[in-house]
């Protein structure tokens, strides 16, 4: 199959969990990577090594371990800066996850009555609710791009949505439900034309596409560690350095200050301005190892692999009677998460039967209820592949879906 990673067998050996079996001796077919990715041995080993040999608090401990730990944490920042092609390492802020990064922005970007924020109907709840809260606090208006029937952004009314009162345009790069890849550079340019800030949610893009913040030319971009082969508990906010330094602090605490008196404090510059308290040190170190690992394989080959697997999966899924794929059906226009409906079987029940055959997928609304509502469905089943996914695993999914139809006596 054209486009597959050439050393797929070797890559799979990097992920120890893929060797395990489930109840009844079933091999694991992990198709839930858009939910969280599996972790390569190098990430696990790097984190264990840090805890076994270098553990200390950072930037506060005047001893050798403290220096080693600080160096490892700050090296992770350099690795992430390289991963995003960021102009400066000071532009990389470590957060708890992408949700916290989005909330940081929604909490610190100043909005007022008469202002508006523009989002899209295909956002993850984290990029909806955080802006709803911000607009409610400020008396600002929330607007959104609707979707076309084939699951793309409807840009037809872009000129009415984004105007001189728009302060923020926030949008996902790749939809976690529909898989749609959005024209992020175009949207960022539209925002800038009206003096609005652009915020890109790259949570689903960063795992599978080359992300270059300078090429996208946006103002802020967020992603989460655990979807790019890193651990949970660590996310990233990238922002233009000047903009970050204009934002007020988010959390108050240690490490984010210049000086503190009982009367008032002055604040450090980015990134430390936004990293109050002891950060997730070993998680950051693990994320550094993860983006190094992806960089070593190459995001272009990973993207090609995802596209090959996605095309194969789209073909297989659409061969199943009563199955409807949601979102674009052209693999070159989408990411590796494919949500679908199967007539007469609820997603929960599908996922349960698939699980009994070792096939792990996600069922539900995938934290994208508005996008589901747009297509008149309450929930869906989602398969999502990654760099370790094989065509044989897609075959196992398709076979298990045929079995599901038989089990529930459909058709």
């Amino acid at each position, binding site marked *: 199959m054209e486009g597959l990673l050439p050393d797929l067998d070797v890559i799979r050996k990097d992920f120890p969990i893929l060797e395990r079996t489930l*109840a*009844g001796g*079933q091999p694991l077919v992990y198709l839930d990577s858009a939910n969280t990715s599996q972790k390569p041995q190098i990430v696990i080993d790097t984190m264990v090594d840090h805890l076994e040999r270098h553990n200390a608090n950072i930037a506060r401990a005047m001893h050798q371990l403290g220096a080693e730990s600080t160096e490892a944490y700050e090296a992770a920042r350099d690795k992430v800066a390289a991963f995003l092609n960021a102009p400066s390492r000071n532009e990389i802020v470590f957060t708890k996850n992408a949700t916290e990064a989005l909330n940081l922005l929604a909490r610190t970007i100043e909005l007022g009555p008469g202002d508006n924020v523009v989002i899209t109907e295909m956002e993850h709840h984290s990029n909806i609710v955080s802006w709803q809260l911000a607009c409610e606090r400020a008396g600002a208006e929330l607007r959104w791009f609707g979707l076309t029937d084939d699951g793309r952004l409807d840009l037809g009314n872009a000129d009415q949505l984004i105007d001189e009162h728009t302060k923020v345009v926030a949008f996902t790069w790749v939809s976690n439900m529909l898989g749609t890849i959005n024209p992020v550079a175009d949207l960022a340019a539209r925002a800038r034309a009206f003096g609005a800030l652009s915020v890109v949610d790259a949570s689903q893009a960063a795992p599978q596409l080359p992300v270059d913040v300078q090429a996208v030319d946006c103002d802020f971009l967020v992603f989460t560690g655990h979807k790019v082969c890193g651990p949970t508990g660590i996310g990233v906010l990238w922002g233009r350095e000047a903009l970050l330094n204009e934002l007020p602090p988010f959390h108050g605490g240690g490490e984010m200050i210049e000086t503190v008196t009982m009367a008032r404090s002055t604040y450090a510059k980015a990134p430390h301005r936004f990293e109050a308290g002891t950060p997730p040190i070993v998680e950051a170190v693990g994320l550094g190892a993860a983006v190094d690992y992806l960089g070593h394989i190459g995001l272009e080959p990973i993207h090609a692999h995802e596209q090959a697997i996605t095309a194969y999966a789209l073909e297989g899924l659409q061969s199943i009677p009563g199955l409807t794929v949601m979102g674009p059906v052209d693999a070159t226009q989408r990411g590796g998460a494919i949500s679908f409906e199967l007539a007469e079987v*609820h*997603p*929960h*029940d599908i996922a*349960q*039967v698939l699980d*009994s055959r070792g096939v792990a997928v996600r*069922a*539900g*609304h995938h934290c994208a*209820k508005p996008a*589901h509502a747009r297509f008149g469905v*309450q*929930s869906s089943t989602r398969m999502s592949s990654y760099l370790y996914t094989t065509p044989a695993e897609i075959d196992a999914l398709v076979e298990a879906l045929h079995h599901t139809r038989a*089990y*529930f*006596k459909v058709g």
Partner: protein
Amino acid sequence: MSTELDNLYQEIILDHYKNPHHKGLRVPFESEVHHVNPTCGDEVTLRVHLAQGPQGTVVEDVSYDAVGCSISQASASVLTDLVIGKPVDEAMQIHQTFLELMQGKGQITPDEDVLEDGIAFAGVAKFPARVKCALLSWMAWKDATAQARTEPQGDPHV
């Protein structure tokens, strides 16, 4: 492996799923509630109609509209079979028995005299992710019944 699955999806459950009993929203009713399972988005709108019988308050009708998986749909159907026509206190006892079965991690042998078709849900208790599905309509019923009982005795919604 497939026996575990068959344990979960008993024939009785699949029958109730395909042909749910008492489904649809009816009048009269004293209270209506809307419950959701935030994890999966399953929803139920449920109405309770109570009436005064010779032995006290009776569950005269339970009507509902629901979207969800086979477990949640079948559970609503079984609930209505079990509580409609029963004195409220007895229905609350049945609710408690079903709740204990669901929270029993699969260690409880259900009493068919009390739970009738509800015993088919014993297998669900072994799947922690699905217990909420089975309890969605039961929790809605309890909530609606409590509201109906505290409603001032006025005219019901008709």
